[in-house]
């Protein structure tokens, strides 16, 4: 039986190479906007431009973990393997993006704060989040019994998701040196910076879906071989 039945996206979306090509072109457009369209910030200078992909990458990481959370909940409710495949695939991609967010955040922190890392609430939660999803990836490789692995991973994915709202609210609740871009009422970003950020977020979201579709199809192929 095809465990990704119902998630068989191949019939509804363009082939992989088209998605990769569009993703690549969007990435080039975003890079051009970051380096040539967006103005330089006055206090931090050129290094502030890390912000565009850093925020976009964090957004995709959070979104991917939300999909893992959702997949976990649905798997526990109906025990259909397709939801486990969705959760597993999304967690793997989320981990890639959240790792990029962490590393590039450190590269931004060094010239601005003077240190690569500080135990600020937002950064501490991000470190815990990274460790949790790293553990999740180990869990997915450790168990031999498919059903118990899926059940355990679903519970783990649901619990680990708490780091996403915690991270979001950390800079709003506690005193932190991490900048807050999106406050409830308005954003302080100039127009050109905002447009660049939106294009970057759109690009990263597109790449996430391209990765997700390829990852799910990969799982389907490996299942057919079993």
């Amino acid at each position, binding site marked *: 039986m095809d465990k990704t039945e119902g998630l068989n996206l191949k019939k509804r979306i363009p082939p992989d190479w088209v998605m990769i090509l569009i993703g690549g072109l969007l990435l080039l457009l975003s890079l051009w906007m970051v380096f040539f369209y967006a103005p330089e910030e006055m206090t931090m200078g050129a290094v502030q*431009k*890390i912000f565009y*992909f850093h925020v976009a990458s964090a957004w995709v990481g959070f979104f991917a973990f939300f999909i893992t959370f959702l997949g976990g909940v649905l798997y526990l409710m109906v025990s259909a393997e397709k939801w486990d495949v969705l959760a597993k695939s999304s967690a793997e*991609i989320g981990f890639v993006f959240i790792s*990029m967010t962490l*590393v590039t955040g450190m590269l*931004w922190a060094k010239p601005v704060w003077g240190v690569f890392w500080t135990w600020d609430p937002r950064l501490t939660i991000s470190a815990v989040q990274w460790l949790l999803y790293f553990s999740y990836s180990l869990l997915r490789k450790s168990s031999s019994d498919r059903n118990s692995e899926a059940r355990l991973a679903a519970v783990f994915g649901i619990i680990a998701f708490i780091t996403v709202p915690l991270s979001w609210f950390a800079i709003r609740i506690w005193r932190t040196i991490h900048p807050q871009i999106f406050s409830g009422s308005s954003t302080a970003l100039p127009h050109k910076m905002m447009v660049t950020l939106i294009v970057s977020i759109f690009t990263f979201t597109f790449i996430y879906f391209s*990765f997700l579709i390829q990852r799910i199809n990969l799982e389907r192929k490996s299942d057919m071989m079993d």
Partner: protein
Amino acid sequence: MNLYLLLAYLFFLVGIVAYQVSLILRKKKSKR
């Protein structure tokens, strides 16, 4: 050009390309 900025964007590109390549390689492996 700021070194940290350059390193950060290089890291983004390497990360995205490396994951894409890993997906392609795994797909090829599963076809065999």
